[in-house]
C-alpha cells in the first residue's frame, strides 16, 4: 500500500494479510497516462474538466489505444490545458486552431491516432469554421469538446453555448442570445459519431470515448461539465457538486433521440446520449479512391508526408 492511503487501520491489515484478495490498489490507473510531475493540475476544486480526463484515460486503457501513436491536440482555455497533462505526444496550440493543427498532423502521418480535446468556446466560436470543415471533410480525428457554458480561462465571459438568460461577466443582466446546439450543428456538418454526456455520466462518457476510438472519421463528443468558479457561482450552483446534482436531475436519455432536440435552455432538460453513429469515407480514403480511379497508374499511393 502506498503511504498516502487513508483508511481504517484494522481494515488495511485485513487487506495486506491476504494479498490474494487485492487486485489493484497501488496506483490510480489514470496515472499511467498523466504527466505526474505536473499534478496537481491548475483546475479549480469541483471543475469538471478533470473528471472528463479521468473518463478519457480510462477509455484509452480499455480501448488499448497504442500510446506511442496517440496525439492529443488542444486549443487555448481551461479545457485546452488537457493536452499538457497527458503523457502522450501533446500539442497545446492557439485559440480555436486545434482542429486545423490536428488535420495537418493526421494527414501528414495517417498512422497517428489524433484526438482534439478543447473547450466549447475554443471549438465552436473562434474555431467554429474549422469545426464545420473538418466534420464536412470527415478528417479522421476524435474531438472531445468540454462544454462548461462559458469562457472560463478569461474570466467567465459569454460563449456561443451560454444558455439564454444565464449570467456571464459580459452578460451581467443575463445573456440574450440563442445557444448553439453543438450535436445538431456537427451532425449537419457531417460528423460520423456524435454523443453528449455530462460529467455526471462518467461511465457512459468513457464508453462513448472507447467507441469513438474504434470509429474512423470525424467523431464529436460533447462533455457538459461544471465550472463552479465562473459559471456555477453566478448561476446558483455554488459548488461543482451542485452543478453535478443538477446534471443528474435534468439529464434525459430518450429513445431515438435526435440532435435537433438537444438545444440547452436553463431550467430545462439536458438531452444526453449517442445521437449519431454512421459511416462515411474519410478525407484520406476518398482522396485515395478518387485519384486511383482518375489517375490510374500515374497516382502515387499516399502513405504519409514524413521525410
Amino acid at each position, binding site marked *: 500500500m502506498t503511504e498516502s492511503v*487513508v483508511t481504517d487501520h484494522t*481494515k488495511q491489515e485485513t487487506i495486506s494479510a491476504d494479498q490474494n484478495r487485492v487486485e489493484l490498489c497501488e496506483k*490510480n*490507473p489514470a496515472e499511467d497516462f498523466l504527466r505526474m510531475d505536473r499534478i496537481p493540475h491548475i483546475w*479549480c476544486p469541483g471543475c469538471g474538466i478533470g473528471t472528463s480526463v479521468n473518463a478519457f484515460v*480510462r477509455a484509452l486503457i480499455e480501448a488499448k489505444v497504442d500510446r506511442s501513436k496517440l496525439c492529443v491536440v488542444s486549443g487555448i482555455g481551461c479545457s485546452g490545458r488537457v493536452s499538457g497533462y497527458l503523457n502522450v505526444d501533446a500539442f497545446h496550440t492557439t485559440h480555436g486552431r486545434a482542429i486545423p493543427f490536428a488535420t495537418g498532423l493526421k494527414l501528414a502521418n495517417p498512422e497517428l491516432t489524433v484526438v482534439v480535446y478543447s473547450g466549447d468556446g475554443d471549438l465552436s466560436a473562434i474555431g467554429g469554421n474549422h469545426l464545420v470543415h473538418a466534420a464536412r471533410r470527415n478528417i479522421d480525428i476524435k474531438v472531445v469538446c468540454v462544454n462548461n457554458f462559458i469562457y472560463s480561462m478569461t474570466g467567465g465571459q459569454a460563449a456561443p453555448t451560454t444558455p439564454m438568460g444565464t449570467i456571464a461577466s459580459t452578460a451581467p443582466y443575463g445573456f440574450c442570445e440563442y445557444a448553439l446546439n453543438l450535436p445538431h450543428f456537427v451532425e449537419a456538418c457531417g460528423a460520423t459519431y456524435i454523443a453528449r454526456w455530462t460529467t455526471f455520466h462518467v*461511465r457512459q462518457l468513457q464508453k462513448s470515448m472507447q467507441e469513438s476510438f474504434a470509429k474512423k472519421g470525424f467523431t464529436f463528443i460533447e462533455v457538459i461539465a461544471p465550472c463552479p468558479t465562473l459559471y456555477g457561482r453566478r448561476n446558483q450552483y455554488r459548488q461543482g457538486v451542485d452543478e453535478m446534482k443538477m446534471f443528474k436531475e435534468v439529464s434525459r436519455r430518450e429513445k431515438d433521440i435526435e440532435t435537433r432536440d438537444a438545444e440547452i435552455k436553463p431550467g430545462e432538460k439536458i438531452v444526453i446520449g449517442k445521437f449519431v453513429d454512421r459511416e462515411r469515407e474519410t478525407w484520406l480514403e476518398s482522396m485515395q479512391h478518387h485519384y486511383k480511379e482518375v489517375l490510374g497508374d500515374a497516382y502515387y499511393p499516399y502513405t504519409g508526408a514524413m521525410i
Partner: protein
Amino acid sequence: MKDSKMATAEKKERQSRGNVNINKDRCKGCGFCVEFCPTHALRFSEDFNALGYHYPVRLEEAACTGCDQCGAFCPDFAIFGYRYKSHT
C-alpha cells in the same frame, strides 16, 4: 455499545467487495466521490489535507463494492476503488 458498533463494522467489511485508495493530499475536496458513491461508503474528513481541503475517508459502517465510481468522478485523480480478487 462500542462492541456492537465494531461488530457491525466488521460485518460490513466482510460484505465489502472492495475498497478505495485515497491519496489525500491530491484531493481538492470537491465532494463528487462522497456525494455520488452508490453505497454512501465515504464521508469527509474532519481535518484538512496539505492543500487545505477536507478529503474523503471510508465510512466503516458502509460496504464498499470497489465499483470505482468515485475514481471515475474524481477530477484530481485522488481516489479510486478496486475490487478484491475473490470475495469470500
